[in-house]
């Protein structure tokens, strides 16, 4: 499992996040309405995971590790934001 909630209240995404992580991430976000997300260790993410990030609009700590992920310019999940 690569989507994990830490004690600090931060959800981290690490490694390559497969499609199942979308459901995990969604549940974590629903259970922790204020949790921020850290995807600096994330090397790749399934589009379903990206979709959850888009819907969540939570603060995102980046930039992510995966080269393709850094090229996403969408403001809500942009690596610079």
């Amino acid at each position, binding site marked *: 499992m690569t989507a994990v909630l830490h004690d600090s209240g931060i959800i981290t995404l690490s490694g390559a996040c497969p*499609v199942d992580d*979308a*459901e995990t991430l*969604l549940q974590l*976000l*629903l259970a922790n309405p204020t949790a921020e997300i850290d995807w600096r260790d994330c090397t*790749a*993410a*399934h*589009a*379903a995971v*990206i*979709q*959850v990030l*888009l*819907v*969540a609009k939570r603060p995102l700590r980046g930039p992510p590790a995966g080269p*393709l992920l850094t*090229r*996403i*310019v*969408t403001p809500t*999940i942009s690596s610079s934001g």
Partner: protein
Amino acid sequence: MDEFLEQFLLESRDLIAQAIDDLLALEEKPSDTERLDGAFRAFHTLKGAAGIVDFAAMARTLHAAEDILATIRSSGGAIAPGLLNECLTCLDLTSRWLDAMQTSGVAPATAEAEADDMISRLVGSRDADERDQAPQPQGDDWLQRLDASALARFDGPRVALRYIPSPDAFFQGHDPMALIAGLPHVLGVDVALTDPAVSLDSMAPFSCGLDIVVWMAASAVDVRAALTGAVGLTEIRELAAPGVTQAESDTSKAALLLESQLLVLQDAGSDGLSGRLASAGRTAVHALIHLGRDEAAIVVDQATAKALVERRTSPLVEAIERALTRAGPASVRDDAPARVHVPRALRVDMSRIDALVKLTGELIVLKNAIGHAAKLSQENTQPAVLAASLRDQHAQFDRLATELQTAVLRIRVLPLRSVFRRFPRLVREIAGSVGKTVRLVTEGDDTEADAMIVEALFEPLLHILRNAIDHGIESPERRAAAGKPAMGTVVLRARRESDSVVIDVEDDGAGVDLARVRAVAAQRRIAGADALAAMTDAEAAHLIFAAGFSTATTVTDLSGRGVGLDSVKAAVERLGGRIALETRPGIGTSIALMLPFSLMMTPVMTVEVAGQAFGLPLDSVLETAIVKRNLVVPIGSGHAVVLRDRTVPLIDLTQALGLPHHPPASDQARIVLMSIGPKVAGLEVDRLGERMDVMLKPMDGLLAGVSGVAGTTLLGDGRVLIVLNAEELFD
């Protein structure tokens, strides 16, 4: 080209014409099921034909369109305008492919890529239609999601992709991000939700609702190849080269600079060669660096060094030329229609061929009769009997020849509908692009004319229509202020007038601004100040047909492209026609093209000067007159004659043709009055001849450039008759 392919092209064009007809009728009346069936059948047959000649791209494009029509047919609904347009675009594309095949004999290489695009457009428009015109980003709006600054940094081909995976994509085990990771040279990605209102509580995490835009430094072909696993809608757009919008003027300036370096290098002399090489190279490098084209600059720099070492200009010239071909305006949007396709084959009504067969039979009977008369003449028949028989046969022959001529001409005619029907859609597009609404009314589209004339009319008419919409019709606000309906009207009317076909293009716009025309003509030195002052309003209005004239204050995409109405005038004159203009301020402008019904026969009048016969085209002859020589008065360096209280400039044809001059034999001058555009001018000749119909052969070879001559023909006695071009004589 093999016969098989020729037949395919011929039939496909017919089918396309039929499909366009049906689609345009559907546009008028979207619920017309008969037309829908007709269009469906045409698409279906076209697809089949494409399959037979193994033109896969065409087959699958038409298949996609046919699918859409089939769905509409089975649902019993009306066709949406967006879908209709895409179907028409699909036919346009097919038509272009056929043109390419006609010239090269094979399917164009770009067809596959174009087919992909067309299919995704067709599918896209169908889905848009199914979503019942939900507020879906339409057309190319999505291109605005691109990060322009990131794109501008990259040279070379750039492509934008929009990918909307189908909702069940995740269930199918598809990961759109993995697909994007496999795309070549991704520069940036924008991921959006198809439904921005969705929340964490309501979302279905495994149902895909993404709308992804990706931009890449790659060619469309590579991108398309990498897209094979896509599940859902894809749309690919090739992007113009960097910074077209702001940098276009810079680019053209730089291009000029580069061109002038080429001129410097052209001078073959070895004097100061190294100096010239170094300076030209340096200038070119600076120009390229300014454009941000560092790679090209490096290439030119290296070429300069090479040229200096080898002491010859060619390496540098080649390098600059290469840089130049890329420096030109990066994406000139060429919305000009493809060249008019000259009909190589013609479909002819069977009854017209039957008429020819019947005439041939009668000619054979007549041939036998003449043979009989020839035999009689050998048998010492009475001359009077023989003469009567010959006269009789000549009369019959005359009748048959006329009938044969008419029958042959009737084979070559086409109704003007075949060109008129292309305009309603074009007019709507043109009007839309300049923010006006314009209604096109066509009248008399069953008027017939020679096939070659009909085909050649498309471009001139399109140009006139563009002008009418762009310059003639006012903006909706100005129309409202002038008390006119906001929607402009352009009438396109064809009619027969004795031996001519007349096509009128009338708009209800503001009319030609004569004061501006005069001002511009003076400014561009199209006519001198005195000449301008002496011009009547009608003559001044005709100045818009003068070469180098264009009154549009802002150069628009449409008519202000440097080619003015002069090109229309030239095209019409090439067909042996004339152009006339009538304009009334605030009410509108009407342009009439008068064209010969047939290109084959030209009525001429013969005249004689210095013992030689010349022909004058009858359609520009107004009248002939014999006047007393004392009515001819010298004015300035020329002459004029007063006819019915009107002063008409007069040219002595003998002098104009440079023939040996001799003093006038009588105190009477024979004058042919001719209409030259809106003006009237006289030609003085020695003798007035007769009227005849001739087959005019245009001048070719070395004589092609001779001015003042329209062509030649043979007279009954074997002499060559030179037919003069009146307009050029008076220039």
